[in-house]
């Protein structure tokens, strides 16, 4: 299993190390640095690097590499998943302002995920159904692939040992699910009801995938006209974003990003709304659109100046889209009811729906 752990920051300093069995010299990280150099970008550093005596398994999050040193055969996902959990814990712990508040209580409970003696004056349970659309849209606007992935995140603050059940109006939509360990699997298998004693506080109850048979409604469209000409060092750039199948809801938080080809020197653009930035170093264009007003569609138009003398880029840039739609689960999933057993008080219950863009790409 994990022998040692090194934390390496963006500038390549080992700023924290922890050894469990015996101390492994920092020099083992040199192999990692080598690999890092070979990979042009941080995300291309291979997660598994063999060295003569050790294996380095790493995850990259928050611009920090968490490098675990392994000495013998182990399921690599075991280590990787574990490192991610460690990072999650760090994030939970350092993310809040009151670090001291969250010291673990160290209680042993047969419900390992729930601390004992929980007390609240206001008992409340909130569930957020969040769906993300992953899609690739091709040049002509037709959908190449689209799927919906969803999660139910919960914030449960209930006194004592509540036992909750949550049922759906249309559980058949859920094709593939994964649960928080608190969910009773058999109950789901037989009745399609989520039955669980919740952990205290925030947690992810469920992740799901909506079955591929259901056609995915794509809530936005992008009209684009991007052209580079061989003869001139100027190119045209024009995109318009509009709502499509939104079930009458507003599309907001729209953000368009696009990685321009290397040959692009600068862009002079005018947005009809929102703000835009083009970074001439990374060649990344981002346009913060905001809300889409169906009466007046947001657009971004202008010119692209290309490096003189180079030939035109052979691929048009892909457009990545982010957006949010409140009060809508695009798959149509609906929570039927939430019941609590085991405690006498009446909790306050709330359910929120949201649809977001996941990995949403438009090829141009």
């Amino acid at each position, binding site marked *: 299993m994990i022998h040692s752990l090194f934390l390496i920051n963006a500038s390549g300093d080992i700023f924290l190390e922890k050894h469990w069995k*015996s101390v492994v010299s920092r020099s083992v990280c040199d192999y990692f640095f080598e690999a890092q150099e070979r990979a042009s970008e941080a*995300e*291309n550093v291979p*997660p*598994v690097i063999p060295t003569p005596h050790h*294996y380095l398994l790493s*995850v990259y*999050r928050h611009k920090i590499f968490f490098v675990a040193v392994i*000495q*013998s*055969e*182990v*399921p690599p*996902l*075991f280590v*990787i*998943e*574990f490192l*991610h959990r460690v990072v999650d814990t760090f994030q939970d712990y350092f993310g809040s302002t009151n670090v001291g508040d969250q010291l673990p209580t*160290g209680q042993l*409970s*047969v*419900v390992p995920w729930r601390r004992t*003696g929980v007390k609240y004056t206001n008992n409340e349970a909130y569930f957020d159904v969040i769906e993300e659309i*992953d899609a*690739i849209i091709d040049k002509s606007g037709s959908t*190449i*692939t689209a*799927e919906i992935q969803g999660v139910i995140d919960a914030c449960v603050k209930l006194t*004592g*040992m*509540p*036992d909750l*059940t949550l049922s759906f109006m249309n559980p058949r939509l859920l094709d*593939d699910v*994964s649960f928080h*360990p608190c969910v*009773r699997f*058999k*109950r789901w*298998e*037989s*009745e399609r009801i989520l039955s669980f*004693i919740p952990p205290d506080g925030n947690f*992810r109850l469920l*992740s799901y995938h909506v079955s591929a048979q259901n056609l995915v409604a794509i809530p936005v469209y992008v009209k684009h006209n991007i052209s580079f000409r061989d003869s001139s060092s100027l190119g045209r750039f024009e995109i318009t974003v509009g709502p499509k199948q939104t079930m009458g809801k507003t599309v907001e938080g729209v953000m368009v990003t696009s*990685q321009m080809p*290397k040959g692009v020197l600068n862009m002079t653009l005018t947005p009809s709304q929102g703000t835009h930035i083009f970074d001439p170093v990374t060649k990344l264009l981002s346009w913060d659109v905001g809300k889409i007003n169906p009466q007046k569609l947001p657009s971004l138009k202008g010119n692209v100046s290309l490096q003189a003398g180079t*030939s035109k*880029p*052979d*691929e048009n*840039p892909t457009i*990545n889209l982010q957006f949010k739609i409140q009060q809508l689960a695009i798959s149509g999933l609906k929570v039927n009811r939430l*019941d609590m*057993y*085991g405690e*006498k008080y009446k909790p306050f219950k709330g359910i929120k729906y949201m649809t977001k863009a996941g*990995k949403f*790409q438009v090829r141009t």
Partner: protein
Amino acid sequence: SFQIKKLVYVYLMRYAEEQQDLALLSISTFQRALKDPNQLIRASALRVLSSIRVPIIVPIMMLAIKEASSDLSPYVRKNAAHAIQKLYSLDPEQKEMLIEVIEKLLKDRSTLVAGSVVMAFEEVCPDRIDLIHKNYRKLCNLLVDVEEWGQVVIIHMLTRYARTQFVSPWKDDEAGEEYSENNFYESDEEQKEKDRKVKATYIMDPDHRLLLRNTKPLLQSRNAAVVMAVAQLYWHLAPKSEAGIVSKSLVRLLRSNREVQYIVLQNIATMSIQRKGMFEPYLKSFYVRSTDPTMIKTLKLEILTNLANEANISTLLREFQTYVKSQDKQFAAATIQAIGRCATNITEVTDTCLNGLVCLLSNRDEIVVAESVVVIKKLLQTQPAHHGEIIKHMAKLLDNITVPVARASILWLIGEYCERVPKIAPDVLRKTAKSFTNEDDLVKLQILNLGAKLYLTNSKQTKLLTQYVLNLGKYDQSYDIRDRTRFIRQLIVPNEKSGALSKYAKKIFLAQKPAPLLESPFKDRDHFQLGTLSHTLNSRATGYLELSDWPEVAPDPSVRNVEVAESPKEWTGILGKTKKEKPAEKFYSESEEEEDESASTSASGGYLESNLHPTAWRTSGSESEKEDKEEGSSDESSGSSSSSGESSDSESDNKENTAKKTSRAADESDSEDIKKKAKAISRKRSTSSSSDTESTSSEESSSDSKSESDSKSDSESGKSRSATSSKKEEKTIQDRKAPNKQDVFLLDLDDFCPVPTPVAVPTAAVLSPSLTADLEGLSLLSSSVIDVTTQVSVPTKTHELLHRMSGKGLAAHYHFSRQPGIFGDCMVSVQVTVTNTTDQKIENIHIGEKKLPPGMRMHEFNPIECLEPAGSITVSMGIDFCDSTQTASFQL
């Protein structure tokens, strides 16, 4: 204070190795702490002690581990398992002794311990699979409730175990398979022989099936490592028709972090070579996004190529076209390779691919062109007949291309097929002879080759040119080139010394060469177990354990049988999760369980599992409709009790089921007369059980005799309960499913230690020794069970406090209700049911003298003023055990 202690321990663990002498000073403190009444202190003391890596204290550590391994707290036992690994790495000499401890801990029923001890097993003695036999079924059944990291370790271990113990389930479906794994392990003849032998008779071992069934739900785990572990288990153990269920879950993992994606994609790549069908439906999930990191892109591409077939190739090629244009040139090059592979694998599209690739030759990007040249070269080799045009086109390219591999490829092509392009070839040689000195080594070698081939076919035009090139090569800096030059010269230039070989020079140079196979780089990875580090690296990692072949003949399956002697009592305790507050139910469930046990025992040979007990639910009228489902879902914690029952005891089970059905029907018909009904059922059950199981222990028969009073108490409480629930029904629909409903059990019930069988006290002594004994056994409950859960999910394990004989007709039972103490945080709530079995009223039942150890507190119940004959009343009291193993004794 405990908090301070914990912090000091953490500090010590960090610095013990650096300052060993100082650390040694503290050892006596730990030895004392190992006996601390608080389990957390005991556990952390052991942890620190085993983290001090000083050889002198090995014996002390050994002793501490041994002691901790029989600790009553499962948490301490878990830490003992952890310490085993540490001691082993400090001093491997201790192996034998440690194996003994491992053997003992493997028998442990706690889900807390299971993962840790299997980990220790894997580190210390992974070859001792004989230790697993007896625990195999238990591990399978506990698996769902083990913590997730433990699950990963156990699943990997069980995969290896199963490959040594069961025969291959692949025999049946092998014939139709394109590839078969077995061929990688065994010779074909063996295979056929086995086929013949097994085909007709293959029936999966029930234990094999048990493993597959119990791991399946874990595909729904949120932990990627668990999902991957199950996937590899199915891949290596399941019949091929069933392995497909893992695809969906693996594809789900692709939504995860890039590192997880990377590992999962690698494994899918290996799988998709052998069994395309598994992932074909998910083809689009592997489409590449421009935002994916390059390593993910190339892996996805690899999988897409593996999945390509006649049906989807046109879609795929269209998709590839976008990839070729990618700004990520490394990826674009990989795509061209992929197109090449598709072209060779699927003959229908070879021409289309070739045309596409030729178009790419006019691409502006050099890397793309170069890669295309290389791929085209390989493709042309497969069918050179009619591609003179392409070769000509490529010869023209030579003027512009600078990438060495591409130039070398073109030269090779022209040389190889120089007879097809007789006019161009000498000209090419002329040009390259001019630039020879500036070329890359790779290109120089090909120029030499081209020269040699032309010399042999067209010596008139090229003799001088070739000699010029050979002369240049003779004085080249690279010895490879000098060597090649010398070799060629000897072969082709006739002189007096040249041997017999030069006669055959033409045959040597212009022999028909086999076309290169364009294969997946994942082709040979399958000899590593999926999901392992070795598979990821494609090389053996230290400590990698080979997955063994399936045995020809399964070893004796009876080794996994667990002796019946392992008191059924224990099992009933573990499995009899019925409602609390109902001593009578306990009786039902127990008797029923006995039945099941005896049934399954006789059928499957000592396999102690049982069905859940629908009758137990049934007595509460309010939930008649839901019963069925709940019954199903409550199976979860008891492993797959019902299903394992299914396979083994068909006949007796059927009988029982019909009995149940009738009683259920009757039960549902009227909810008012629960009292009668309950009685009736109880009678029915008791008669049937006594007739079914004649070997019930004396304990059971005594409870038999109590049945009447018990059932009465039960019916009373049942009545009151149904009343309350119906009231609630009126109030809101939400509360319809009244709080006293059963629920599924996810919880780890095995933490309950087996409790010594209560003994009837011969005298009328008021102090009950049995309670003393029981509480002793249950010390751990004080800490771990108290906070368990709601009242709905309580296992009724009733213990006898006072036998009716010794209590002059007053009987008392108690059990731990496993709900947060209502009397205070530290209090364990104990439910005592007092039953009057005499025909007179008993008055003023209260707690008399208490004999409690210091620190312990007890919250008494309110005195019961009067108890009717045959009546029973349930009271609760709280006891603060102070996390200790001490006993509480008191007088009634």
